């Protein structure tokens, strides 16, 4: 017995090492599973405010006010683009619904707001972005997020003052997209590794895709409006799966330099979702 205690005391540091290593690996393992993301929220609430004030300070050094004004002006212009509205025939039915003064026959379908990125990763297997606006600023789940250059991701979780975004650089993110000249619908997915390249799936092999073709959002998901740039085709090859092409897409957004993002809300999302809820699965 004494020997055992002696042995333990002599090797105490080794046991401590093993225990601490196991603790850190368990933490790592838990943070990978999305359902355990709660765990991260505890940290987010303590560290978030510190990071926010820090990023505000950095912001002050980088022409913050000037930038802010331009962002607001941009937003006002983007709100008036045609893909924000749905066109309605001038019938009795449409006259009863609310109409916009500028476009008497069109109904606003999407609306914009903007936010600043306070946390962002690109080199991990699951990449998230956190922005400085939350529930109190009208952010809600499933809002679309775009940057100045192209699509960024979708809002996944909202707290009072912050919101987290699943960026395209996340295996769970699937964005419905079309290849520009031929308008064929596919899905943009990302596999871990290079943060500037994603894949466009479900494009049949007989179609002709050229390098440099634009990949745009399709607007079928009710999350993204139609026609936002996702990226451009970088490489086309015949995949292992014989019926589809393997298409590498160079993402338009530079995820490493993300500062201001625009959030797009589909004003009729709940209505569309109730319709979709009645779809039969298989």
């Amino acid at each position, binding site marked *: 017995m004494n020997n055992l205690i002696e042995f333990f005391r002599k090797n*105490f*540091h080794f046991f*401590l*090492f093993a225990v*601490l*290593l196991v*603790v*850190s*690996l*368990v*933490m*790592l*393992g*838990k*943070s*990978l599973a999305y359902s355990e993301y709660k*765990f*991260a929220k505890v*940290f*987010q609430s*303590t*560290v978030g405010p*510190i*990071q926010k004030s*820090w990023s505000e300070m950095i912001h002050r050094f980088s022409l913050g006010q000037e930038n802010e004004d331009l962002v607001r002006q941009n937003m006002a212009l983007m709100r008036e683009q045609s893909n924000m509205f749905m066109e309605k025939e001038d019938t009795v039915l449409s006259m009863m619904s609310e109409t916009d003064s500028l476009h008497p026959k069109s109904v606003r379908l999407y609306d914009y707001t903007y936010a600043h990125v306070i*946390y962002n*990763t690109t*080199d*991990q*297997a699951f990449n*998230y972005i956190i922005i400085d606006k939350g529930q109190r600023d009208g952010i809600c789940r499933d809002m679309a997020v775009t940057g100045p250059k192209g699509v960024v991701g979708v809002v996944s979780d909202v707290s009072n003052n912050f919101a987290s975004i699943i960026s395209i650089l996340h295996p769970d993110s699937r964005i419905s997209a079309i290849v520009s000249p031929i308008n064929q619908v596919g899905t943009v997915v990302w596999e*871990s*590794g*290079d943060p500037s390249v994603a894949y466009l799936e479900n494009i049949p092999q007989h179609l002709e895709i050229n390098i440099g073709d634009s990949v745009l959002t399709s607007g079928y998901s009710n999350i993204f409006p139609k026609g936002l740039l996702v990226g451009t085709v970088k490489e086309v090859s015949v995949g292992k799966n014989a019926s589809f092409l393997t298409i590498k897409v160079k993402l338009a957004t530079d995820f*490493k330099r993300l500062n201001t993002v625009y959030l797009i809300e589909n004003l009729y999302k709940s209505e569309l979702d109730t319709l979709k809820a009645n779809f039969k699965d298989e």
Partner: protein
Amino acid sequence: MNNVLSNILRFAVVLVLQVFICSNIHLFGFATPALYLLALLLLPLELPKSVQYLIGFAAGFVVDMFAYTYGVNMAASLIVMFVRPYLVKLLNGRNTTEGVDRPVPGVKDTKWMFTYVIVLSFLHQFFVVMLEAHSFRHFGYSLMAIVADSVFTAFVLLCVLYIFYPARKTR
């Protein structure tokens, strides 16, 4: 006592710099220096091993909390603290008594210093990158990141070390 205080102060300064500045640097898109390794490498070697592990764990915890990479830096710096005494023993060779307490340029020669810093920063960055990627699928990309990170880290650490602990003129 003075030594303890200066170590604590060093940790505070290095961790603040790491969390707010170094973690946000991505040279060439991916190379991020782990400056906080400096405080770990300068810990007195005669500290009990278990204390060293706890310190490494705590430092990694702070960095992880701000970087939202739970467990990655903890495990990596824990492993660094584990390997460090054995590396020092190996580097010292037969003359074990000579300046064991302070692994700084003034006490150790250039070759000793460079090996010490480069090996440990490579080890640290290897685990950081591999744990973050948690797969061998994109090994090429990971390898590139490991090399870039550890070269950058070692460079920064050696610069800081030689600026703040200048080597004395040869006896």
